[in-house]
């Protein structure tokens, strides 16, 4: 029996070793393939293909990181969050609504910029009940603030969830809009207001 167990353990170890080796090899060959597949792109654009630690971890674990990895991501991503100098986390919900509608920015056809980057929230979330063209990749945000009683703590959480969602949900699908400098702090404040202001159509 003991021999059987030790045999099973060694077989398992060899299998895990072979798997890790394969993964390592494929990571190297992927890097090579990526270099050759975007050979005609400009160097500053090619830089977008280089992964940071969080992207690496999430890719490797297919967005289901084990606890230790998840904790490391949360710690690292929390540290990136910058708050407004004046401490005010809510801006103008009307501008937030415009930003939620706009999917402009970041694509190679968007340069030189003809508009500010948008948050593109409606691509994935339901927000204002009157807007029927909403995506379902993310949860519905209908009455998000109202349901949470517009508390200060919830306002702060929404700011953080937009600035860097990976600080709360490691390997979630949502882009790190603030940490990636895709949106400015001012824009994020406007989006927070769109989600959390009692006057916003999100909460009507």
């Amino acid at each position, binding site marked *: 029996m003991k021999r059987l167990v030790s045999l099973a353990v060694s077989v398992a170890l060899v299998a895990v070793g072979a798997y890790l080796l394969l993964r390592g090899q494929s990571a190297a060959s992927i890097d090579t393939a990526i270099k*050759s597949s975007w050979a005609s792109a400009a160097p500053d654009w090619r830089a977008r293909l280089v992964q940071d630690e969080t992207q690496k971890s999430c890719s490797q674990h*297919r*967005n289901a990181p084990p606890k230790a990895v998840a904790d490391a991501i949360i710690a690292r991503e929390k540290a990136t969050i910058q708050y407004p100098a004046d401490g005010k986390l809510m801006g103008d919900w009307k501008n937030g609504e415009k930003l939620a509608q706009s999917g402009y920015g970041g694509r190679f056809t968007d340069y030189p910029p003809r508009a500010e980057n948008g948050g593109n929230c409606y*691509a994935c979330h339901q927000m204002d009940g009157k807007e029927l*063209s909403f995506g379902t*990749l993310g949860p519905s945000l209908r009455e998000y603030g109202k349901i949470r009683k517009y508390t200060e703590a919830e306002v702060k959480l929404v700011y953080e969830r937009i600035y860097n969602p990976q600080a709360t949900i490691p390997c979630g699908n949502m*882009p790190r809009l603030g940490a990636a400098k895709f949106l400015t702090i001012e824009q994020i404040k406007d989006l927070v207001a769109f989600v959390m202001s009692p006057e916003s159509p999100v909460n009507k």
Partner: protein
Amino acid sequence: MRLCPNFAGLAVALVLIATAADARAQDATEKELERYRQMLKEDPWSNPGMLDADRGEALWKEKRGPKAASLEKCDLGKGPGKVEGAFAELPRYFGDVDGVMDLESRIVWCMETLQGFDRKEILKRPYSKANQSGTELEALATYVASKSRGLKFAPPLEHAKEKEALAMGEALFFRRQGPMDFACATCHADAGRRIRLQSLPFLGKPEEARQVVGEWPAYRVSQGTVMTMQHRIADCYWQMRLPLIDYGSDVTVALTLYLVNQAKGGEITAPTIKR
């Protein structure tokens, strides 16, 4: 001319979508498209994509390029000149290049080696834009794919390099990168999801992959032109805020093999029509 009434219906549906981003309009478009698809099944020659296939066939057989040769000796994997059924078994390993190629990279290779065309010239304009006529590559790819209509995807996946490309394609599907952290899996790894009102196929699931992968190259009504799988993938990477990927690159070939393998056993219906 018998295309006209169908197009009128589609045009109305598309205008609805353009003027009111409205769920009902989207429904109307989808219903109209479904009706149209059904009609095409009954009468494949009313499919505008077949015009590209026709043009592709003429191009395939015409003596062209510095070597004044046709593509009739092009080996698409089933031997020189064998076009029927070739698409169903691509991407695959080719000994003459010691690597894996998909349909489109193989066509480019044949144009280079058999006809003597310059690769840079061929790839100057691989994709057509809205309301332009299809490019030569699009027509050729549509022709070859159409010669596998009704067959099922059966990539060989025997050679070590084919297996390696498949593993790479799968890893690439889940690889997150760029300013938005997007991977293919961000949009295509769950059932019943949408971007705005656009439904997203769950490509990680064979049942769904089988329904959609065989539709490409597809005629896009909104563009009035054929879109190939290379173009489809390049467009996804554009949307992911990444630079323009090279035509027929290792990454697009590996991803195509992953998709075709996911769709293994699924019927090839290309060129089908898309919104």
